[in-house]
């Protein structure tokens, strides 16, 4: 039982990070119908931007204020990165076949990984301890304070995003654009700007996930490490399982993937974990391609 609860907790903690990432994939897919392969690299940059700032300014003492400002700074920098990626790489291809956009996305991903490696070096970096670490035991289950804070932060961001998408004017515009670009234009919605905004928001969330990874694990892998891409892929799987294009679906999917990963890793095999998640993806795509909360079935073409 204790073991079960431990896996559950860990699953929620990892799952909330997947959910943050999955939101970026699902929003871009919803609005432009392509897999933004570079998203996992923006996530990586979020971790490295904050690491770089922290080491530059020698922010080594744990402080919630510093942690929050680093989080916001990384989100702002990645939002800018996302904006530039869309503007320079994807916008020129707005009318091109989707395959070309996908290849471009792979190009952007490779570019960010390898230039990240040039800028930030080829070694894993230890991430400064931005928050005081306490571990307390609840009914035999070890709970780390940083993990709790990470989950709460992730949840807060998700609530904020949900409010943005479903309660504000720009959110309505985003949903309208994801349904029909042309008609959205007729409403007076500046479609290109809304698409930019979607990248900005998604990238900021990815950056937050990157910072939370650093805070939770105290170490970040080198920029071109395949674990970043794998993180991203699993988050994309989460978005598909939740129903691509659906914001609540991405959150649910992220959580499910996190739990699944921990339980499979805990009870079956850590090594087979990723294989099982991809197998799950294939099964979902074959059985219910629209995902759990997806509205649109996947067209055949």
């Amino acid at each position, binding site marked *: 039982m204790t073991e079960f609860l431990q896996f559950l907790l860990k699953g929620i903690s990892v799952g909330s990070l997947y959910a943050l990432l999955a939101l970026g994939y699902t929003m871009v897919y919803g609005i432009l119908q392509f897999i933004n392969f570079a998203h996992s690299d923006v996530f990586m940059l979020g971790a490295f931007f904050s690491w770089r700032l922290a080491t530059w300014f020698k922010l080594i003492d744990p402080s919630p204020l510093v942690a929050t400002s680093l989080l916001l700074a990384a989100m702002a920098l990645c939002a800018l990165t996302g904006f530039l990626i869309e503007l320079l790489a994807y916008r020129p291809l707005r009318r091109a076949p989707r395959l070309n956009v996908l290849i471009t996305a792979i190009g952007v991903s490779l570019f960010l990984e390898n230039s990240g490696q040039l800028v930030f070096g080829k070694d894993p970096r230890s991430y400064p301890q931005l928050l005081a670490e306490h571990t307390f035991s609840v009914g035999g289950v070890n709970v780390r304070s940083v993990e709790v804070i990470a989950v709460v932060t992730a949840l807060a961001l998700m609530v904020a995003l949900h409010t943005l998408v479903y309660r504000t004017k720009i959110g309505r515009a985003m949903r309208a654009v994801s349904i029909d670009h042309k008609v959205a*234009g007729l*409403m007076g919605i500046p479609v290109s700007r809304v698409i930019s905004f979607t990248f900005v928001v998604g990238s900021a969330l990815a950056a937050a996930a990157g910072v939370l990874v650093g805070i939770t694990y105290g170490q970040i892998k080198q920029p071109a490490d395949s674990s970043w891409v794998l993180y991203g892929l699993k988050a994309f799987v989460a978005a598909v399982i939740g129903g691509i294009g659906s914001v609540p679906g991405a959150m649910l999917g992220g959580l499910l993937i996190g739990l699944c990963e921990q339980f499979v890793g805990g009870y079956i095999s850590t090594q087979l974990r990723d294989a099982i998640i991809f197998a799950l993806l294939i099964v979902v795509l074959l059985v219910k391609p629209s995902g759990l909360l997806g509205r649109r079935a996947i067209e055949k073409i």
Partner: protein
Amino acid sequence: MSLLEVDALDVHYGAIHALHKVSLAVEEGEIVTLIGSNGAGKSTTLRALSGMVQSSGGTIVYGGRSIVGLRSDEIVRLGLAHAPEGRGIFGSLTVRENLELGAFSRRDGKVRSDLERMFERFPILQERAQQSAGTLSGGEQQMLAVARALMARPKLLLLDEPSLGLAPKIVQKIFAIVAEINRDGVTILLVEQNAHLALSVAHRAYVLETGEVKMAGSASELAASDEVRKAYLGVG
């Protein structure tokens, strides 16, 4: 000076020459209708006017300025709204959200009161305000499309096939509303396959055939002309 002046408008879809030197004018306060058979270029004309498709030649002058090359959202801001073919309702959004989107470009504070006015004019939309728009019937969706376009407070409203797929009784109702809107001061450019209905409500009309203007005149003149009666009114 007409509200809208179109001169020698050309539109190509790839290799297909969809509009061929179309010229027309709409005066302030009028209802002007474009009639013609399927594929004559009626909807394409509206799309070119609202920036949904790019024209390949000719001029479009609206309210004294050229709007060729402007994006849809810029054109709407000038007071030219378009209720597109197939209604273009955002099915997964609520009726209210659809209406609010219609006023997206407006910065004045009167959106809320306009929404109330719209609900008065279309009581059924008030009833269904919180429902997702995809659950509405065809007639209700058409009303929503018209209401949503009106939320932009347009000077000129482009209406594409409002009768499409609707029962005759509902069509009557929609056309009554069109006339009413016009009385309130909105100029209307109406595309309609049902020529009889269109000519009954319009002041003037243009007949389009294979992307070209074939005839033009007052609605009553055209309704009386033999050619129109034969080709489009199914008489004689």
